[in-house]
C-alpha cells in the first residue's frame, strides 16, 4: 500500500462519514433523494465493475433487483432481516453464474440479448406462479425506517467500493483488464477468459439482489410489474456510462447529476421520462463516449501540456 492509497482511503472515509450524517439533517425530501442516490451508486458502481473492463453491457440489473425484493417479501416474517440480505446476495450470485455460464462463453451480443429479456422472463414466471397460487402482491410491513435503509445502502456501497478496489489489485482484475484490451492475447497467455468473466459477473448480480432486498421495505407493497420494472436496468447503464465506467469512482460522477435531473423531470414532466432516457443514451454515444471521467482526463492532459509548454 502506497502513500496515495492511504491518503485516498482516509479521504474516502471522511466523505463516507459526512454522507452518513445526512439522516440527521431531518429533511425527509433530501433523505429520500439520498436513498435513491445511494441505491444507484451501489448499482452503477457494481455494474461498472463488470462492464467497465469487459465492455459487455449488462441489462440484467432489474432482474436481480426484483429477485432481491421478492426474497425480502417472502421471508421477512420468518427470518431476521440481515439474513435475508445474505440470502438475496447468494441467490443473485447463483443466478448471475447461470446466466454467465450460458452466454459468456460465446460472444458479447448473446449476453446483451439474454440480459435484455431476463427481467421480463423472471417477471413472467413469478406472475405465473402467483396466478396459480391465487395471490396478487406481497405486503412488506417492517419497522425499518428510511434512515435505516439509507445506512444499509451506504454500508453496501462501501463494501462495493472496497471489493472493486481489491479486484483491481488482484490477479482476477489484472486478467480482466487484459481480456478487455484484447481477448485473443488473454486466452493465449493462459487466462481462462470465460471463467473470469463469469466470476466477475457474479459481483453485480449479487449486489443488485442485495440492494433489492434492502429496498423492499421502502416499497411496502410489491408485485412483479413493480419489482421487475425494466427501466431500472437502463437507468443504471446510463448513469454508469455518463460518469465513466473505466474508473472505480466514475459511476458516482454520473449518478448524482442524473438522479437529480431524473427527479425533477419525472415530477414536472412525467410523460417525458422515456424521451429523456433516449436522449441521454444518444448524448453518451456521440458526445461523451468515455463519460465525464474521460472529459476530466482530457482537460487534465490539456492543462498539463500547457503547463509543460509554459515551463519550456
Amino acid at each position, binding site marked *: 500500500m502506497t502513500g496515495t492509497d492511504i491518503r485516498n482511503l482516509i479521504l474516502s472515509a471522511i466523505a463516507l462519514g459526512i454522507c452518513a450524517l445526512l439522516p440527521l439533517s431531518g429533511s425527509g425530501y433530501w433523505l429520500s433523494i439520498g436513498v435513491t442516490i445511494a441505491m444507484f451508486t451501489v448499482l452503477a458502481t457494481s455494474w461498472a465493475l463488470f462492464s467497465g473492463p469487459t465492455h459487455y453491457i449488462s441489462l440484467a440489473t432489474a432482474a436481480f433487483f426484483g429477485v432481491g425484493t421478492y426474497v425480502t417479501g417472502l421471508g421477512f416474517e420468518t427470518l431476521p432481516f440481515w439474513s435475508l440480505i445474505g440470502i438475496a446476495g447468494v441467490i443473485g450470485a447463483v443466478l448471475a453464474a447461470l446466466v454467465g455460464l*450460458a452466454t459468456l462463453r460465446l460472444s458479447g451480443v448473446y449476453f446483451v440479448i439474454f440480459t435484455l429479456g431476463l427481467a421480463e*422472463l423472471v417477471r413472467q*414466471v413469478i406472475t405465473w406462479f402467483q*396466478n396459480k397460487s391465487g395471490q396478487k402482491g406481497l405486503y412488506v410491513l417492517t419497522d425499518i425506517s428510511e434512515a435505516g435503509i439509507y445506512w444499509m445502502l451506504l454500508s453496501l456501497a462501501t463494501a462495493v467500493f472496497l471489493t472493486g478496489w481489491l479486484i483491481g489489485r488482484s490477479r482476477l482484475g489484472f486478467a480482466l483488464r487484459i481480456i478487455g484490451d484484447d481477448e485473443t492475447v488473454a486466452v493465449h497467455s493462459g487466462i481462462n477468459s470465460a471463467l473470469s468473466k463469469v466470476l466477475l459477473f457474479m459481483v453485480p448480480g449479487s449486489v443488485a439482489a442485495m440492494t433489492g432486498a434492502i429496498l423492499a421495505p421502502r416499497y411496502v407493497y410489491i408485485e412483479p410489474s413493480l419489482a421487475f420494472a425494466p427501466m431500472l436496468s*437502463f437507468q443504471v447503464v446510463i448513469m454508469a456510462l455518463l460518469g465513466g465506467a473505466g474508473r472505480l469512482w466514475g459511476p458516482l460522477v454520473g449518478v448524482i447529476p442524473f438522479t437529480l435531473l431524473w427527479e425533477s423531470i419525472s415530477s414536472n414532466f412525467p410523460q417525458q421520462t422515456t424521451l429523456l432516457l433516449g436522449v441521454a*443514451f444518444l448524448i453518451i454515444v456521440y458526445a461523451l*463516449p468515455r463519460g465525464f471521467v474521460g472529459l476530466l482526463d482530457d482537460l487534465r492532459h490539456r492543462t498539463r501540456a500547457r503547463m509543460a509548454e509554459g515551463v519550456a
Partner: protein
Amino acid sequence: MDILITGLLLGGTYALIAMGLNLQYGVARIMNLANGEMLVAGGFAAFWMYTAGQISPFLTIFLLAPLTFVLNWLIYRIMLQPLVKRAKSRGQLETDSILATFGLSFVMVGLMLSVFGGDYFNYSYLARPIVIVGDTFALNRVAAFLAAVVICGALYLWLNHSRAGLSIRAIAVAPDSARLVGINVTHLAALAFGLGGAVTAVGGALLSTYLTLDASTGVIFTLKALIIVIMGGVGDVRGTIIAALLLGIVETLVASLLDPGLTLAAAYTLFILILLFRPQGLCGKKPT
C-alpha cells in the same frame, strides 16, 4: 392441429420481422435494438390509416414500405455511419450501436407516447372466420400470413438470384473481402439497413391486423426477432424462416397449453437450448 396452424400463421409474420433484423445485423452489422419500435410504428401507421381513412392495411404497406425505407436509410447515414467509421474493432461497434439504437428506441417510444398516448390500440379488420382442414381461423391472420409469405419469398429470390443480392450476401459472409472485389460496402450496408427497416415496419402493419399493440411493446418484438436471428444463424435467410416458424409454434403451444403470459419464457427456453447446443444457429456452419 389447430395449435400447429395458428403457430405457423404467427411464425410467418415473425419470419418477416426477423428477416428485417437479419438484414440490418447480418449485412449492415448494426445490432438494431430499435427494431421493435419500427415495428410498432408500422402498426400505428396501419391503425391510423384504417381508422381515419378506412384504408386497408394491405394497401397501407405499399405506402409504408418506401417511407420507412427512406427513414431507415437516413438513420443509417446520419446516425450509424459515423459510429462505423469511428469504431476500431467489431466489439466496439457492437457496443456503440447497441447504445445508440437503444437511445433511438427510447426516443421513438417517447415520441409515440406523446403522440398516441399509452393506450393499447387495435382495430377490427377482416375479423371473419375461415375454415382450414376442419378448424376455424380468423381471416386476418391467414391474410397476414400470406402477405408475409409473398414478401419473404420475394426477398429470398432477390437475395439469391440478383446481382445486388449476391453482393449483399457477400458482405454478410466477409465484409472485408467484399470490399476487395469491388463491392461498395458502405452503399450496400445503408441499402440493407433501409430495406431491413422497411420489412420490419411492413411486418408491424401486418401484425397489427390481429394483435393488440401499444407504444411500449416494441422491446418484446425486438427480443423475439433477435432470438430468431440467433436461432437461425446470422445472415441466413433459410435458417431465419425455419426458426421463426419454430418459435411461432412453440409460443402458441405454451400459450394454449400452459399460460398465455409465458410466451417470452418459451422463447427463452429455445434460446438457451440453442446457446448450449448449437451456438452457430440451426443452419449455421461451425466457425473454423
